[in-house]
């Protein structure tokens, strides 16, 4: 009689152990699915962020400095052309939370953040210098290139235009030209004209006015 009771207990025990094994397999299944951190998503997000922010990219002025005009024109197909891993994937690119490019629902994908500045070349500022020997005008800091337009009056020869002592335009026979010169970006520049006494006319220095703002670029990709 006791042997039979024991057998019943044994069967019960085996059933319990089977149940535990089934639960264990289910947990393992769940753990395996949860461990899938989608490395390809992360690669796509990193690649898109790198291409958007790199020096030499069509969207940047220099490394980590986005061009505001290029950013305004950004759409999903341009992003795909820049970074092929983004093809046929849900995208979300945002600057400080404001979406710039959005395609599909990218909430389940990998996210990458970069620190960038956005450079806004909102048009040109123009400084006019009346021509006289030694006349100067000042270009503010942050300008690397300017267009110098020399417009001498009659009987006037402008020999040289200097930027901070460095000669940028020179013509012994007289300048009457519209040329692009390079300036030192890290300092305000003094533009100085050398000409004959009793000179007339105007020199116009035109340079892009830049507004620089910092933002955090967020790229989310769900392939």
């Amino acid at each position, binding site marked *: 009689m*006791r*042997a039979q009771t*024991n*057998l019943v207990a*044994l069967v019960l025990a*085996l059933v319990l*152990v*089977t149940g535990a*094994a089934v639960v264990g*397999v289910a947990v*393992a299944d769940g753990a*395996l699915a949860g*461990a*899938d951190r989608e*490395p*390809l998503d*992360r*690669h796509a997000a*990193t*690649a*898109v962020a*790198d*291409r958007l922010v*790199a*020096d*030499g*990219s069509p969207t940047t002025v220099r*490394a980590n400095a986005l061009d505001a005009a290029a950013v305004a024109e950004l759409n999903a197909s341009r992003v795909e052309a*820049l*970074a*092929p*891993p983004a*093809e046929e994937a849900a995208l979300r690119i945002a600057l400080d939370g404001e979406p710039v490019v959005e395609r599909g629902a990218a909430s389940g994908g990998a996210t990458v953040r970069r620190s960038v500045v956005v450079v806004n070349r909102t048009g040109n500022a123009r400084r006019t210098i009346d021509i006289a020997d030694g006349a100067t005008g000042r270009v503010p800091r942050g300008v690397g290139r300017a267009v110098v337009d020399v417009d001498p009056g009659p009987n006037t020869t402008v020999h040289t235009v200097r930027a901070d002592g460095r000669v940028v335009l020179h013509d012994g026979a007289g300048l009457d030209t519209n040329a692009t010169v390079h300036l030192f970006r890290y300092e305000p520049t003094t533009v100085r004209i050398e000409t004959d006494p009793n000179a007339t006319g105007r020199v116009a220095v035109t340079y892009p006015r830049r507004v620089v703002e910092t933002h955090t670029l967020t790229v989310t990709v769900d392939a």
Partner: protein
Amino acid sequence: MSDRSRGLTPVVGKGLEAVIVLLYVASLVAALHGGVLPEYRTAAAAEVGDRTLATAADRIEASVPSPASAVDVTRTVDLPDTIDRAAYRIRAVDGTLVLDHPDPAVSGRVPLALPERVATVEGTWESDDRTVVRVRGDGRRVRVILS
């Protein structure tokens, strides 16, 4: 029942229990091995394959330096020798990185994101060999070679 028979009953009972338990364990192990284990192995191998591909692509993309006049970079990349006990191969095809593995679930491809300057990506990596990425070129045209 005689005394001797009464003494034998618990032994027979325990023996029966032991045999049943052994049979049960054996069948459970066989069921797991046959049904569940190969699936898990393939799933884990597919994950490792994905991760290896993503790591390789990341390293290749990171090895292209910023614009400069002359480029000559050689970088060694660490990849696992085998996935699921089989050697594999990574090929550069048409701007895409392809992982060739005997198990089709582990193979995969990922497009590479490289700057405009990179004219070509070529070469093949054998997983059990030394894997090196070379970037060569001048300011305008850059080649990436896997060897």
